[in-house]
């Protein structure tokens, strides 16, 4: 019924350093299907962030193939990768990473404008903000005027605005207290229930418990 959204085939990532090459990913193969909620776990230095960067099209594998939505990103140039990040991937970062110069509303609208070259006239931005519980009054504020939980909600709305194939979360609760973190995870679970594909990197097992499947990475391999 479901088709693979992400497919890694013997993916290796080597960082050349003067002191010797560092192998961050060592022949990883995995498949994530549409609608899955996958948690990637592993100790620091295991290569989970590197893996997320490959899936997130911020970087390209040294060898092996990585298919995203059926496209091999190893053959893409920077322009194509950027387009893919804009249209097919929604990022949720540990540090929220909203644009400080833009209001909450504008932060959510930004990827929409980048993709469609016009302001949102469909009400999508407003609806998404309502979905994550940000009212119209809050949406006029700049990120530095909002709490961490509110910022992360706005980041989720921003990640969803171009209706991406994958939602990538990098320690989404890492900068939040446990209560707010739980609320954010509830919101992500809701999105998963609606059919969204979610890949989440975390080192907390309580957070990983929200996912259906957990992949553990150790020394650049699937453990």
């Amino acid at each position: 019924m479901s088709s693979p959204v992400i497919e890694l085939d013997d993916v290796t990532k080597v960082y050349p350093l003067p002191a010797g090459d560092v192998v961050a990913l060592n022949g990883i193969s995995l498949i994530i299907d549409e609608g899955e909620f996958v948690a990637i776990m592993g100790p620091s230095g295991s290569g989970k962030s590197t893996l997320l960067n490959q899936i997130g099209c911020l970087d390209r594998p040294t060898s092996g193939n990585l298919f995203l939505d059926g496209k091999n990103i190893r053959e893409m140039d920077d322009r194509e990768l950027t387009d893919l990040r804009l249209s097919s991937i929604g990022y949720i970062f540990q540090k929220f990473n909203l644009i400080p110069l833009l209001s909450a509303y504008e932060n959510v609208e930004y990827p929409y404008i980048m993709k469609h070259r016009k302001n949102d006239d469909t009400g999508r931005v407003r609806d998404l903000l309502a979905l994550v519980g940000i009212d119209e009054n809050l949406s006029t504020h700049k990120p530095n005027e909002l709490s961490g939980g509110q910022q992360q909600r706005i980041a989720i709305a921003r990640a969803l605005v171009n209706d991406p194939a994958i939602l990538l979360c990098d320690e989404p609760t890492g900068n939040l207290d446990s209560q707010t973190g739980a609320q954010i995870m509830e919101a992500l679970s809701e999105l998963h229930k609606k059919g969204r594909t979610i890949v989440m990197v975390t080192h907390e097992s309580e957070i990983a418990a929200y996912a259906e499947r957990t992949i553990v990475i150790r020394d650049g391999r699937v453990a």
Partner: protein
Amino acid sequence: MIGKDIILALSARSVRLHFLRSVLAALGIVIGVVAIASIGMMGANMTLSVTEELSDMANKLTVTPYTGGGGGMMAGPGGGGGGSDPDDDEDLITEDQFRDIERIVAKYGTAYTVRSESDVIEVGSETGRATIYGLDADIMREILTVEEGEYSKSTTSVVVGPTLAERLDLKIGSKIDIGDPDEGSTTTVRVVGILEERGMSMDLNTDMAIVGGDKLFTGIYGGEGEYDQVNVVMDDLNEIDTVKAAIEDELNRKEDEVTVQDSSRMTESITSTVSTMTTFVMAIAGISLLVAAVSIFNVMMMSVNERVREIGILRSIGTQRTEILRMFIYEAGILGLVGAAIGAVGSIVIGYIVVFGMVGTAEYFFTPGSIVYVPMAMAVGAAICIVTGVYPAWRASNLDPIEALRAE
């Protein structure tokens, strides 16, 4: 709501966020633009006003003996100075040649002869040098204006230029001894008139001269039927080239005997001198723009460095390199345009003051040749800003998104 060009909006907001810093950087451009435009306009106004003054004599031709070197612009009588001995075998225009010129010119204007010599003069106990002109009495009335007194009528009366009169304290009735007492006899003449100031000119420079009749001149220096120069006053400006060519054809048929000059050469020479000076001073003013460029560069580098993380975010959520590049070029462009616009207003105000102060008149200020320096300086200022912004913008756009995201 944010406009369609969100990249431009981001640039504008960044400028506004660091308002003071941006204003200071733009101030450099303002100063540079004002300096270049004001000096450019000053030069243009100077040229225009000199040209206007010189066009008073545009209807004059001078014919001087050919000296081989193609005669400089000041080759007029007395200009050579140096107290040449009248008995020298210097080239002169003969009576025959004058008749030829007169015949050619007859249809178009009047030709008259000029004799001149530089000599020692003595007034009371003061000695000095002056040019002594010998002119026909009727011609003198026609081309020179006496401010005080009357025209000379006898062979012992002269009129003097205003500068000479002031310097030697000459009044109507003053006596002047012409000639060097050590070398022979002197001639005493009486001042009957003081001329109006005439300024520097190509045909006659009377401000520092003594002007007497032909007879007085030949009485002192001899040289009947020989002239230092023939001046032609044209009735119609448009015929000046025809007459010039006709005189040259006729008199220089066998070999070069005369040089015919019109005022265009002098105008050209002065204009080119002024414009060389203006260019030089403008280049110095340009240094202020260079300083401004450095400060814009500095501000842009700061802006890039403190926004590394933001650039990382923008890149990771799908902003193209070219858009990041555009964002920073816009930022430099905003600084440049605002600075140049304020500079343009400032240069009209300050330029007007400078022109009025230095040139003495602002009547040419709003002519195209002068006011064109405002948009020119603006364009240079804004262009320098944008060029300066290219490197910081290029650096920003080439940041690795992963590295940039890690920045604090």
